[in-house]
């Protein structure tokens, strides 16, 4: 039985409830081989804290809607391996809806990932 766990910090803020300051909440999730950041966040949402707001769609690195900021760097959460002590924040420069979820709107098409999408 694997009892290894991972601990990391997740940004929480609900502008809809007039929260002006964000805070970091620490979560612990079980480790498994190949676990990605998105797996960890979805584990929290389904098993630990139903209220966590997190967005994803395709799960295979194509849609880019699961992008967020990890330790200061914008990444796709479905791609990045989950590690201890990660600090996870919403992607900057978009309006925050709640926690890790932003409103992409028109700006999505000019995002960092959109620009490089077909440069393969």
């Amino acid at each position, binding site marked *: 039985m694997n009892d290894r766990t991972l601990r990391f910090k997740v940004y929480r803020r*609900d*502008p*809809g*409830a007039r929260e002006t300051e964000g805070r970091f909440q620490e979560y612990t999730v079980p480790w*498994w*081989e*190949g*676990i*990605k950041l998105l797996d960890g966040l*979805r584990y929290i*949402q*389904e098993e630990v*804290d*139903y*209220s*966590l*707001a*997190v*967005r*994803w*769609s*395709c*799960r*295979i*690195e*194509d*849609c*880019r*809607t699961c992008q967020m900021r990890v330790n200061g760097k914008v990444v796709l959460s*479905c*791609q990045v391996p989950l590690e201890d002590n990660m600090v996870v924040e919403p992607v900057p420069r978009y309006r925050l*809806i*709640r*926690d890790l*979820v932003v*409103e*992409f*709107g028109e700006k*999505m*098409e000019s995002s960092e990932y959109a620009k490089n*999408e*077909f*440069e*393969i």
Partner: protein
Amino acid sequence: MSSKTLHIVEADVIVVGSGGAGSEAAIHAKQNGAKVLILDRGTFGRSGATITAGHTCTAAVGDDDTPELHFRDTVIGGYCIADQRLVELYAREAPECLYELDGWGDGKTLRKNENGKFDLVWPPGGHSRKRSVHYGFLTGPRILWALRREIDRKRVPWMENILVTSLLVEGGRVAGVTGLDWKTGKFIVFKSKAVILAAGGFAGLWPSRLNTTAVECAGDVHGMAFEAGAEMVDMEFVQFIPAQVDPRITHINVTLTNFPAWRPNIREHGKFLNAEGMEFMGKYDDARRWNTTRDILALAIYNEVTAGRGSPHGGCYIDLTSVPKDVIDYEFNKFQGGKSIPKSYLRRCESVGFDLSREPMETGVKAHFTGGGLRTSVDMMSTIEGLYAAGETQGGVHGANRLGGNALTHVLTLGRVAGREAAAFASKTSHVSFPKKKVDAEHRRIVRWMENKNKTGESPVRIRQRMQEIMWQKVGILRNEKDLKAALDWFAEAKNERLQKARVGSSPRTFNLEWATAIILPHQLDTCMLVARAALERTESRGNHHRDDCQAIDNEHWLKNVYLWRTGTGSVSSRTEPVHVTTVDPKGVIDERPDITV
């Protein structure tokens, strides 16, 4: 809710979904003069299954190909129960649709050869001609990119983060939809003369780890349309497909695992192995081996795993280790068309420590594409006046098994037909009267969850998880009467008892996934019921529908489709009708399975 606080948005045509079908539909509805509005529950232009389409989009554009051949292959590949009127229409319109799409990307949407024509590659098994148009392994994203350009150019309005919660129908005619704005938690009424449902399939009814679709394709729109009175067809046909199951790898879903099967230079050297290292496809389809159709490949893998010959993550192995290195490098690297190619399949595999040329890839079976959906006529209108269906939401287009590469073709081509027809319908009709009572009832249904009337109770998230496991265990790739009946009992109990006692404990009104689950779950449970019920009705095995208690294909009795609809009392009724035939007589071709001549 008082009318003062009611947010109302009006349009001629509401399109639900912004993937391939929804975008095509909206562009063509706008082009035909309608006031259109696209609603997407996720991120606009980034949601739905189109973006997950890796590789091929079929169309009869080759010199040796004709729409008639494409039509014929599709009918035979679908075990002769696709609606031939719909297949004819899409095979005929597909070339024109792709030329138009290519133009929207300034002639660069899809790959060309040195003569400036579409670069054609072999599609997966079942096609008799080389007819796959592509953009490396980014065909789906590339198509969405071109659609987005045209949507921007034509200024088609859209709203994102809108979860459509019900269809409004008055006197047999569609009056619009209701929706929840995830950004604000506000309830919105969308009034329209026509609604096009292009919200994807229902593969999301199976557990996340065992489906390949995008999260928006949750299967609730089918139940929603059923509840509103729409008739459903072919709900038993769910395509389970070989898909990689190695948790380290996220960028490969199904393309690579199906890819070698139809590339001659790989097929020659590649193998499908079980955990005992034994090649097993000969047991299931000796003549074609892994060039067989997807339904047989999937069942073979499933059988090996169930028999205890599976890999650690519940699959078998695709072994490409004896494929020459230059072939691997060409197919998974250079083929994608780049220079340094950091994002190619090969490079991305290397980045997670997986070496395709040394290690076999674990390949399991996942729910991929759903052939069932709303019954439509050739104008894509459902059995409710003014309600159209396009893309995977629509049923009956592929019969019992979808050929690889036909999904993109179907959703794009019939999406544009739906847009044209809905615009024509809207131009000669007026808005029907506003069903105020239904709107109020729907509003109450939604806000009830946030009022926390139940002090205790399980979360709807738990019920959904259980539902998905039951879909895999009892309404999965191999079915029987006992399991299907048990599943039907469970769905009824979950909807009528468990969900009534459930509680949404999380209080935020914006982007509350638990609340959204509660809202769509009754519709999802209805869709589950429709799949199980249709599977129970079809007492044979055909294509994607396998019954271990009725193992044979029964062409004498079952060249038919199963239709399901809701009766006035709320229960489900079913009937079978002979398949719609135009020019290919099933009796003449049913034993003919096309061989690929490469």
